């Protein structure tokens, strides 16, 4: 408990979290502070490239763990199963239509790569090691949740939601391709490759993350201002309960796989986090009738800050306690 509190305190007062808070505050106060779309996208490309590359280098360094395949598989299964749990929970807690519930559920099965990045920063800051291939697990968990959610809807008699174009769009989503691609590049070029571009992808990383979280805060704050009306208390609670449910499943999976402390913590973070890049786009195509304010506000305005501030320290502390790390 002490560790949780001190981790949480250190976390809350880090430049990263404070930058996010600044963004939220600026948006709520209706400041005209804003980061251009192109710059935000540029930063997200930088972060994906850097995190993928570093993961690949780490695999090249430490050799291929036998659990890589199992972890990928476990990730896919988790991503596919979590929406079912989320959907069931929403029918108890929320008062959403089937469509809205399925759309929300898809987000919680998938992952938030920035939450993952923030968690790796916390781990690094605490000197806790983790498997480099967790970034590949992150990529593997992006898409299955979407298919699960569409299956939920088709079960309800509503069909023709999925076509081959959509499937390609989901699987070859820019963030998946960049993450997997840079992971492979890092793996192939290894430490030598890293040495060449370290000054770009390692040293300034934390600083770029600050500005990126400032932007996320601005977008989340604007979303909260416009979308807070749509969130009934039940749905709001879901946004903070579901991460804990996901994290628990992630914990079990990580322990079963016998991952390191950091690996377990990251599995918890991935399961606990909710997508706001790939899934919203897929939902607009496949479930256009679902209300985007609900899933965007919940994912970016509630669950993301929850994980960023409280979730990550909890997950890291629990993983440390249970792995003896």
């Amino acid at each position: 408990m002490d560790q949780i509190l001190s981790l949480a305190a250190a976390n809350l007062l880090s430049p990263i979290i404070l930058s996010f808070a600044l963004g939220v505050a600026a948006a709520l106060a209706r400041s005209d502070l804003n980061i251009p779309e192109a710059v935000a996208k540029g930063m997200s490309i930088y972060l994906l490239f850097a995190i993928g590359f570093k993961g690949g280098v780490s695999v090249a360094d430490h050799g291929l763990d036998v659990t890589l395949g199992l972890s990928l598989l476990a990730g896919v299964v988790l991503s596919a199963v979590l929406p079912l749990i989320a959907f069931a929970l929403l029918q108890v807690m929320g008062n959403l239509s089937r469509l809205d519930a399925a759309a929300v559920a898809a987000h919680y099965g998938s992952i938030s790569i920035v939450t993952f990045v923030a968690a790796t920063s916390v781990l690094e800051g605490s000197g806790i090691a983790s498997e480099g291939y967790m970034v590949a697990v992150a990529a593997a968990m992006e898409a299955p949740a979407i298919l699960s959610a569409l299956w939920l809807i088709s079960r309800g008699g509503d069909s023709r939601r999925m076509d081959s174009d959509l499937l390609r769009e989901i699987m070859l989503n820019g963030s998946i391709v960049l993450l997997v691609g840079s992971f492979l590049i890092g793996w192939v070029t290894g430490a030598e490759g890293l040495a060449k571009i370290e000054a770009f992808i390692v040293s300034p990383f934390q600083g770029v993350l600050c500005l990126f979280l400032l932007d996320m805060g601005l977008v989340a704050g604007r979303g909260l201002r416009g979308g807070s009306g749509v969130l009934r208390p039940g749905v709001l609670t879901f946004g903070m309960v579901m991460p804990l449910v996901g994290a628990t499943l992630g914990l079990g999976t990580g322990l079963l796989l016998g991952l390191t402390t950091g690996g377990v913590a990251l599995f918890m973070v991935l399961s606990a986090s909710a997508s706001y890049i790939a899934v919203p786009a897929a939902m607009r195509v496949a479930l256009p009738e679902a209300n985007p304010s609900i899933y965007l506000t919940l994912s970016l305005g509630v669950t993301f800050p929850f994980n960023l501030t409280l979730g990550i320290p909890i997950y890291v502390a629990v993983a440390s306690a249970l792995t003896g790390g």
Partner: protein
Amino acid sequence: MQTHQAKRVAIIIEQVMQSRLTDAMTDAGVTGWTVLPVLGGSGQSGAWSREGQISRGTGMVQVVCVIRPERLDELLEAAFAVVERHIGIVSVSDCEVLRAERF
């Protein structure tokens, strides 16, 4: 100057649907269009803005198509099939164009 009657169709549609719309237009034999960016907007489903966004999930574009009047219906049917279940606006106005041979 010599001008020719034509129709100008402006379709405001979600970014994620853009390629589906233009594919449908191509299938309907329409070969020329232009895509304009959109910064933000407001409608029944609330207000939105592209500022600082990284997901393609939020946001619209405007597809403009200048077309011979006799081709209009084909285009509208193709466009309608795509926007039908989605948010979006299809508006048509009369216009005159130079160089009709290019259409």
